[in-house]
């Protein structure tokens, strides 16, 4: 896909119901803008996010995927984000190993009270993904030419 002036990234944000989704709501009710490229999918907990969802998003054309959950220690289910943290740490490290550009994936802990953080996070994430341009490498990890 050629990079054009008007190119807009597709960004999927998985947000846990208890903290981050509420943080996104707070960003909304506080009118803290972030790019419309970000589309939020609600999950009960960050630990519900299967690496397959993330890879699926990339395969289907996403240019960036971000996962937001409660701060470690504050998980509504007490431990979910700790598992998510390990899973994503390993997944991201693997993506890096495969030569996928750093910056297309991110995990951020956003509480229900952090509307500002939510908005800032999304702004900086989108900026990073825009700088990287359209996703090619993660579209096909079989890496066929």
């Amino acid at each position, binding site marked *: 896909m050629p990079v054009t002036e008007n190119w807009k990234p597709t960004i999927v944000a998985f947000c846990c119901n208890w903290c981050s989704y509420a943080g996104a709501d707070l960003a909304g009710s506080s009118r803290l803008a972030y790019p419309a490229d970000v589309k939020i999918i609600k999950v009960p907990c960050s630990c519900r996010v299967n690496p397959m969802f993330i890879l699926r998003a990339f395969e289907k054309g996403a240019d960036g995927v971000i996962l937001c959950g409660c701060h470690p220690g504050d998980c509504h289910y007490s431990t979910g984000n700790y598992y998510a943290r390990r899973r994503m740490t*390993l997944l991201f490290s693997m993506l890096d190993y*495969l*030569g996928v550009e750093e910056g297309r994936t*991110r*995990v951020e802990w956003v509480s229900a009270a952090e509307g500002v953080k939510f908005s800032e996070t999304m702004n900086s994430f989108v900026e990073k993904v825009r700088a990287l341009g359209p996703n090619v490498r993660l579209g096909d990890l*079989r*890496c066929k030419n």
Partner: protein
Amino acid sequence: MQELIVRAKELLEKGEVARVLGWKKGEQEYDAEPAFFETAESLDNFVYNGFCGANLSKYMIEAGKKEGKTLVFLKPCDSYSYNQLLREHRVDREKAYIIGVGCKGKLAISKIPFDGILKVSGAQYPDAQEILTVETLYGTETIPYKDAMLERCHVCKGKDHVVYDELLGESADTVDADRFAEVERIEKMSPEEKFAYFQSELSKCIRCNACRNVCPACSCRKCVFDSTAFDSEQKANTTSFEEKMFHIIRAFHVAGRCTDCGECSRVCPQGIPLHLFNRKFIKDINALYGEYQAGSDLECPAPLTSFTTTDAEPGVGRG
């Protein structure tokens, strides 16, 4: 080898085991493949030599469904796989009689760089020789045993079995390489080089599923890729997803469970170094969450089903 057959016959005859799981001669000595032996006579086809690299532990899942005990021969590294299956309740220890066999390193026919191979001698156990003699259509060649060894044997986990009922035969120390050297070499590459490397390797994949079928950790009754568990619409839709993401998802599914037995790379008909995915996860797990060897014991918490409150954050140390 003979002592294994003798012992197997003995156990069969005594009725202590109902069948034997071992390796069977192929057309060539180097064609040894896993086989069940139901009778003492059939054991005449039993073989144990340098080409018996196949890890038999996964076959014990099926064996567990049959009547009576199964005698299985496990090399030291195979015993880790068996233990991991035991931990995951996939095999029934009660229905297994495990003979831990000695191992002096296993060979890969693909590593013998001669055309028209007819016969390889010197790979016989227990008298494996330092130099293999290879008869080819074009004459006789020699190659040091070590040079024909599987990659995994150069980074062998050790001579000890982690689970067994009895032990037979000696093992040799074959380690002469750093297990993570190749992973580190790739890690040091630029993203472009990394991508180019994996692109050239993975584009060879023909999706034959040999890696999945041989992997003791890939033992799901029904693989996600064969089911509709993740379909959003129809099967045709997921095919491309499966095609494109197969290896990384497979590696993730076995992360923290893979014993690094190396079977995936051994059986890949395209010679893709698939173990490099698993070993990357193992290296990260060791570095981030403490040394962990899957299959080494049945109790200690597994890296992906446990945590500490001070774990590293995703992405730390990247780039």
